[in-house]
């Protein structure tokens, strides 16, 4: 397992990948900060689903509010990246090549997943830090006080935001791995992922509100947003755990039972 994680990091941690990830984090920080601060409502219920309020931005945790709100929109992007990375392992034959050296399929897929998630964890931290810096620069221009951003409560809020976003990223990653293992072909896995997490879930919940609490994409979005009106954070964490466990089980069953051929 450790060898697989190291191999995955060797594969991913390269100058080009690091620069691209850093650029992506910087872009996210700037865009999320500008958008959230520009659209913050003067008053109202602080629901991250529909942006945020000036009061929430001025309070403890306001420094990472833009990060948490913006992250809700990148979950699907993470999903796509994991599908492409892992389905590419199957269609490109590298999964097969790896198995001729390490036949433990569970270790191989977990190692690939964990290695990629370690990189994602760093990227999430960098994006959160970048958003805090951008928020510190933008807040004075919007007349939003930042005094509470350096309190202990703010640190706790920042850590909570980091944990929920990383939890959401992990969930998307596992769902991506499941689609990759089941379909094995990048366009097919991506097509199914797009269709499900895009139109199918979002159109269905318009007429069936329970979908917010049961569909994996909706549950993960709620988790990343720190809870929503439809699904509180506690339920979101529990549902994410159950969904992720089910997806992981499907992945492992599919991998262990299938022959690995081209």
């Amino acid at each position, binding site marked *: 397992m450790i*060898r697989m994680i190291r191999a995955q990091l060797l*594969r991913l941690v390269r100058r080009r990948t690091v620069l691209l990830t850093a650029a992506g984090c910087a872009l996210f920080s700037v865009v999320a900060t500008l958008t959230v601060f520009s659209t913050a409502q003067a008053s109202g219920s602080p629901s991250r689903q529909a942006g945020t309020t000036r009061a929430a931005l001025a309070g403890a945790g306001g420094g990472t509010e833009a990060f948490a709100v913006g992250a809700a929109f990148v979950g699907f992007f993470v999903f796509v990246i994991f599908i492409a990375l892992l389905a590419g392992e199957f269609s490109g034959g*590298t999964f097969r*090549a790896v*198995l*001729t050296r*390490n*036949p*433990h399929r569970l270790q191989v897929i977990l190692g690939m997943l964990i290695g990629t998630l370690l990189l994602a964890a760093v990227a999430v931290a960098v994006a959160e830090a970048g958003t805090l810096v951008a928020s510190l620069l933008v807040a004075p221009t919007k007349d939003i006080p930042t005094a509470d951003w350096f309190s202990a409560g703010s640190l706790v809020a920042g850590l909570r935001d980091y944990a929920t976003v990383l939890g959401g990223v992990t969930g998307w990653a596992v769902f991506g791995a499941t689609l990759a293992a089941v379909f094995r072909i990048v366009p097919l896995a991506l097509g199914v992922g797009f269709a499900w997490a895009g139109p199918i879930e979002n159109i269905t919940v318009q007429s069936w509100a329970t979908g917010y609490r049961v569909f994996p994409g909706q549950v993960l979005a709620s988790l990343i947003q720190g809870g929503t009106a439809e699904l509180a954070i506690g339920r979101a964490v529990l549902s994410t755990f159950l969904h992720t466990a089910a997806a992981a089980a499907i992945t492992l069953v599919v991998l262990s039972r299938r*022959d690995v051929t081209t």
Partner: protein
Amino acid sequence: MLPTRAPGVRCLIINGKTPRRSWLPVDNLDLELPSGVVAGFVGPNGAGKTTTMAMLLGLVRPTAGSGTVLGGSIAEPAAYLHRVGALIESPAFYPALSGTENLRVFATVAGHPTAAIPELLDLVGLDGRGDDRYRSYSRGMKQRLGIAATLLGDPELLILDEPANGLDPQGVQDMRSLIGRLAGTGRTVLESSHDLSELEQVCDWLVLLDTGRSLYQGPTRALLDGVVAGLAVVPEHAEDLPELRDLLVADDHQVVLQDDRLVVQDAATGIDSVAAAINRAAFASGMVLVELSPLRTTLEDRYLAMVHGTAP
């Protein structure tokens, strides 16, 4: 024929019918490779060669059967895969990484040292190209990198699925030489190929497969020795060829003219007596023969005869 050395691979495997598969890719294949042989794995498309190799590597699970590879059970490939180097189907690497980086990744996966990578790249003729991205490699270079990857960790058994595929003539010759050198170090090699002339030159052991069943397993020499394709007859003077031909046809031989010689095709058995009779008849007719030699059958001839059921 029973091997005289301890087996490198010894298994009876069946990849049988399943609810989703109605045919038998591998049907009661009793495979045995002595250690240290270079074994050619021959069979038509769909004969089960790649499936068999995939089963030895744990990629495909036999529906029944048992056996060992390097002493480890095929039910537990982890027990022996670290001593096996394999190139199955086509080489597969990460396109965005260089050749060296790819080898480093795969060495890390298997826990092999990476210090030998420059030497391996040199061995397969990729010295100076190791830092180039894999996606920029030609097909032959990709194949060479695939061979280098199989040699990571100094394996005892090499399983190579058409290793010369995509190589230019020089590359094929280099590959042949490389496999010969590897075999000389005591490794066991199982190599599948459709290039039978190449296998005939490289392999000292053959496994002939058709529709999932073994047609022949044993030394290459035992398959080819003692079986001749005909008898070449060359008179001293080329102008005697028509008369000599008429003479042989009159003796009920099947004769064809090939270049500047006659080939007696019905001399596959009892060749010594046939040769003696031809020599006597020619001498009696005033002709001197400068060549009277058996034509050795090729692996291709023998293989096709066995697949079509016409082999003696």
